[in-house]
């Protein structure tokens, strides 16, 4: 069942008298029990989008359907009620520093006017769930980042939300705590079956948790797919860039410039990822396969991998090899030379001469 549906959402800011389209005609929906990733580089508009969803920022236009209402049209009192049904966790945790862990978790319940008698068992249940019962009387500053974020999760879950918004929730954490918080989020989704919108710039985080991912660039969703399909067939350059990771700075298209032979990106599903397909076609079709780059990603639904390969041989043989790979379920994308963003000095120099 659909928990939230966003239609043609727009939000722009004036910065030095120029309009910045932070959210530009964005539409998507998220179902119950689904983790929906919104991934993009810094400044892509992810954080503005998530603030529009619970109306902390008022969108310029568009619709946000949640709990049977278009939130954009509601007045403040309805919005406050709906915000409780939409928990949010933040990059910097945003805990109340002068309240104890217990009071932080109790806060949404107190705001909703619940009696202390009802609040006590609920807070204790939540603290137990995040494994921080022993720290109930501690202040946030006495906890580690990972513990603070778990308190943030408990606070966000206090009112039994249908949707959890996670705004770069692991970006300020070290790898170990990132792992802990991610497994906690996974547990929340499995136990409570709520929907999660996960905002991140780290593909590592998105692939560990998401069922579906939307890639954002300049306020627009440029590509949206299930995680497996996205890794198999990344259509947009930003997506391919994010799959490769930031430590590997070269766009895939760069490999097409390296050789005169045609270069392909081959995407392998979990069923084909372990089969020796390349050496197989190399033997059968008498083509030389030169592997330029490759990667395997462990996703929620199974392992997905890709290889960047150039084929040398008779044109007919290469064609046969490719169609054989296609029949085996391999996703094939031809990489055109000169499409990369970092083509090096050579190309720019040529352009200038012209």
């Amino acid at each position: 069942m659909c928990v939230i549906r966003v239609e043609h959402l727009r939000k722009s800011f004036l910065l030095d008298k120029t309009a910045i389209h932070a959210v530009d005609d964005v539409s998507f929906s998220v179902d119950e029990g689904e983790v929906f990733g919104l991934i993009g580089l810094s400044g892509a508009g992810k954080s503005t989008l998530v603030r529009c969803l619970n109306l902390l920022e008022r969108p310029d236009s568009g619709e946000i359907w949640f709990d049977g209402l278009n939130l954009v049209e509601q007045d403040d009192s309805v919005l406050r009620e709906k915000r409780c049904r939409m928990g949010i966790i933040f990059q910097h945790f945003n805990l109340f520093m002068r309240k104890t862990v217990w009071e932080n978790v109790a806060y949404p319940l107190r705001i909703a006017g619940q009696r202390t008698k009802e609040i006590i068992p609920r807070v204790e249940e939540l603290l137990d769930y995040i494994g921080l019962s022993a720290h109930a009387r501690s202040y946030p500053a006495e906890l580690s980042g990972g513990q603070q974020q778990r308190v943030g999760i408990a606070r966000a879950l206090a009112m039994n939300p249908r949707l959890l918004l996670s705004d770069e929730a692991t970006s300020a954490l070290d790898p170990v705590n990132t792992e802990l918080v991610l497994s906690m989020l996974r547990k929340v989704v499995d136990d409570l079956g709520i929907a999660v919108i996960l905002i991140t710039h780290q593909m590592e985080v998105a692939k560990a948790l998401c069922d579906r991912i939307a890639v954002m660039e300049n306020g627009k969703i440029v590509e949206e797919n299930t995680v497996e399909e996205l890794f198999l067939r990344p259509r947009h350059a930003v997506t391919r860039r994010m799959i490769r990771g930031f430590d590997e700075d070269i766009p895939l298209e760069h490999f097409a410039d390296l050789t005169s032979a045609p270069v392909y990106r081959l995407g392998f599903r979990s069923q084909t990822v372990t089969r020796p397909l390349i050496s197989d076609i190399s033997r059968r079709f008498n083509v030389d396969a030169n592997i330029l780059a490759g990667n395997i990603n462990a996703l929620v639904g199974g392992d997905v991998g890709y290889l960047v390969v150039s084929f040398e041989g008779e044109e007919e043989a290469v064609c046969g090899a490719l169609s054989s790979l296609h029949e085996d379920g391999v996703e094939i994308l031809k990489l055109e030379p000169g499409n990369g963003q970092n083509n090096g000095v050579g190309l720019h120099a040529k352009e200038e001469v012209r």
Partner: protein
Amino acid sequence: MNEFVRATLETVYMVLTSSIISVVIGLPLGVLLILVRPEGLRPKPNLYRAIDVTINVLRSIPFMILMIVVFPLSRLLVGRATGTTATIVPLAILAIPFVARIMEQSFLEVDYGVLEAGLASGATIGQLVRTVLIPEALPALVNGVTITIINIIGNSAMAGAIGGGGLGDLAIRYGLYRRNSLNLFVAVAITIAFVQIVQFLGRLIENRLRRDGTSPAL
């Protein structure tokens, strides 16, 4: 010696009453300022600018001049223009804009993300102010009140020069005019002791409030 006890009590009365009045009016003003700031939660840039300018104007008037200017107001409110009770009016009037400004600055130290977390939990603006903004800023607010009281002690001493009563009055009449350095010295010493006690108590309360492990403001 009787004179000293009377003067000390007068000063305590003046300082305490005007401090309470200035906080009671200045704190809500500080809250209003933080809310209507151009980047605040309820931005009203024109209202903000109006209050902002008024505060700056009031804060630039020297106390002696303000005291004389508000004589008519004092007469209206307490029935006379000089004396201990009458002096409370200019003391409070000068302290209110100071308190408002210092509260605004204290509130600015509260991370906007924490306010966002409160709003996302379903809080109204009023609830947010009461349950997040003021509690989170409390140590800084206490520090601000301490500074305010010390300022008022200084101003109240000055008020003595034009019939305000209290220790300042005593220091000038019995010390300066009669050339009695002992009287002058004792009056000043009591005033210094006052400032020390207020500063000590202020810091004590502030440190207690900071037991949550958050680092103290500079």
